[in-house]
């Protein structure tokens, strides 16, 4: 196993660490936004499972909420919801 040491000379390597926002605040890309009707939501978590962005978050009450800072508004969640609890609403 290698020992990792800082270099004495100027050293830069093409390295990254996982972190949110590597393409900025992608919520600004959105033209339509998902709105969850919590009365219809049964907490089945299919939207959470299918969301490509990890922007559907589980709430303490066993339901979901949207991370609008990063949600790109693709609409996958609305389409997979068996209870039509997510509506895509035009931004603005």
């Amino acid at each position, binding site marked *: *196993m*290698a*020992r*990792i*040491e*800082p*270099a*004495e*000379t*100027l*050293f*830069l*390597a*093409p*390295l*990254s*660490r*996982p972190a949110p926002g*590597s393409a900025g605040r992608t919520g600004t890309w959105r033209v339509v936004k998902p709105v969850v009707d919590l009365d219809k939501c049964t907490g089945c978590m299919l939207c959470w499972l299918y969301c490509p962005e990890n922007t559907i978050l589980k709430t303490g009450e066993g339901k979901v909420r949207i991370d609008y800072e990063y949600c790109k508004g693709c609409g996958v969640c609305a389409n997979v919801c068996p209870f039509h609890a997510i509506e895509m609403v035009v931004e603005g």
Partner: protein
Amino acid sequence: MPVMGLTGNYAVAHAVRLSRVEVVSAYPITPQTTIVEKLSEMIEKGELNARIIRVESEHSALAAVYGAASAGSRAFTATSSHGLLYMHEVVWWAAGSRVPLVMAVVTRAIGPPWNIHVDHQDIMDQRDTGWIISMAQENQEVLDLTIQAFRISEDPRVYLPMIVGLDGFILSHTRAPVDVPEQELVDEFLPPRRQPYVISPETNLVMGNIAPDDVHFLMRYSMAEAMEAAKRVIEEVDREWGKLTGRSYGGLVECYRCEDADYLAVITGSWSGDAKVAVDKLREEGIRYGVLRLRFIRPWPAEKIAVHAEGKKGVLVFDRAISMGGYGPLFSDVSATLYGSRISLEGVIAGLTGVDVKPRDFAEAMRRFASEVDEKGFVYKPREWLLPRKYRENPEKIREVARIWS
């Protein structure tokens, strides 16, 4: 320390064993093949505790050892000629990622036509990549350089991969006495592997996604700086190896009879030995040449060349490769190094495609250059051809051959 009769390729294999390499991968290509054959044997016999990956191409060979090195293991590959060209993309990728790695390049001409014999076209093609590039003159130096390569590449001031160049057949397949050091000595010289980062679940690091262009620029700058730092490291390592083994080569360059010379011949690789024989011969005629043998092509030993060239009447550069439409690659860099010095310069293209260059051929070129400088005072000839002797002696023969081969 046992002295063994080893080919250059076996000297590489023993050096790899002594350097405790953990992962080896290579693809067969003449004249490299006996390196990976020997390493396979060592690994299967348990003399070297390493994994060997018998890949389906050179592109994969370098990618495999690069992957291993990125994951934190000391790794090694070897290739030649078309194999080196085929892996060229990965050569760049490995250097840019700053992961220490060592590769032996057994130099060989590039086709067409198919040709397995020596020239330096393949290794010279790697000059811009960010690999440290060394060239050995003899089998002992092959072994010593290979062990040193791990130390240099893994030095935190450097963190660049390194090529050990050895000439096809002349070294690779020719047996010579080689002092093979004891494992304890190599362990003392070569510390456990160091590297700037490791890609693993523990580090959760990502190598190589898109970076801002200005930061990418700084990465290139930092590589160039590391090459400069490598010059010091190479000298240090050479001195330290000298203390341990009694073998010190002079670091970036080796100078043979330079001090009292009027002219310098700049050269690299195994044929330097023939150039030295020519120099001895010319001394008897009263023509005083020295040989400046470049042990490293990258980093370019500019300062050393400038110091050794100072006060000389002329510098004659022998290239075993050519940049088509340009000059010999060594000549271009020597010319840039000596710009403004008013030292006479000539670049000679010779020994391409395996054509043998004998001491008398070297002597002929050296004699001609010296007399021309003496006659004219200043000469600048960037590209002179030292054709195979039979065509020099009988130029009509060239037309004759061209008629057949057209």
